[in-house]
């Protein structure tokens, strides 16, 4: 094992989450692009069509999971990139919590939008 390169470090839960979400996003992002650009076309978008998709529980749950994993993967990636560039101390803590807050806003807004399409009263 000592000779095999890997960026893995033991105890790195965020490292693992970043890779698990990457594998999930590979499949779901490809599906998202394929469905909304090749099966349906960009100039055919309507509230009615978006609603019809989001009213299916399987599609709704997949999109919520897509939103949460994409937000985690993207924001954790930004945080890693900044730490990698040498971000430390108080600045690091402030940026970390700003990113956590931005993620929360993004997820809440995304869920509200999905609910509006799905006809779920909570939006």
């Amino acid at each position, binding site marked *: 094992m000592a000779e*095999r*390169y*890997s*960026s*893995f*470090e033991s*105890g*790195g839960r*965020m*490292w693992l989450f970043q*890779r698990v979400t*990457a*594998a999930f*996003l*590979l499949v779901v*992002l*490809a599906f998202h*692009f394929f469905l909304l*650009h*090749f099966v349906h*076309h*960009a*100039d055919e*978008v*309507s*509230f*009615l069509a*978006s609603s019809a998709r989001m009213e299916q529980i399987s599609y709704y749950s997949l999109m919520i999971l897509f*939103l949460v994993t*994409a*937000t985690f993967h*993207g*924001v954790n*990636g*930004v*945080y*890693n*990139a900044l*730490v*990698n*560039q*040498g*971000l*430390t101390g108080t600045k690091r803590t402030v940026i970390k919590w700003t990113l956590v807050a*931005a993620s929360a806003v*993004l997820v809440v*807004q*995304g869920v*509200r*939008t999905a609910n*509006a*399409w799905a*006809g779920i009263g909570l*939006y």
Partner: protein
Amino acid sequence: MSQSYNRGLIEDFSRWREFEAGMWAWIFHKFTGWVLIGYLFTHIAVLSTGIPAAGASEAAIMAGEDVYTQTIVSLESLLLVRLLEVGLLAVAVFHMLNGTRLLLVDLGVGLESQNKSFYASLILTGAITVASVPTFIAGAF
């Protein structure tokens, strides 16, 4: 846990001549990652027009006169938006292919040929992007 590495200043532009495939892969992965997270926030902001649209009358929704449908239709009628979407596809495809390369290396596959797999990612990104142009700009003219 992330760590800091001293790679010197990549802002020192003349250093690009010294870069090998792995360094370009690192720079491109980082750049495409920044673009994608920036786009995710923009995407959700635009899609949020679905919230006020849900309150529109059934007749307006059926006729496609709600604020969500109108926003998307007017954005998609702009050639610039269609071209930006092609750019987004290129960025996403590269990030996905290079990301697969990184996942495989972490699993112990392909470290010796990591430069070749980077070039393959670039070529495949180009091919997929070019092949998608007709679909992405259909109806924009």
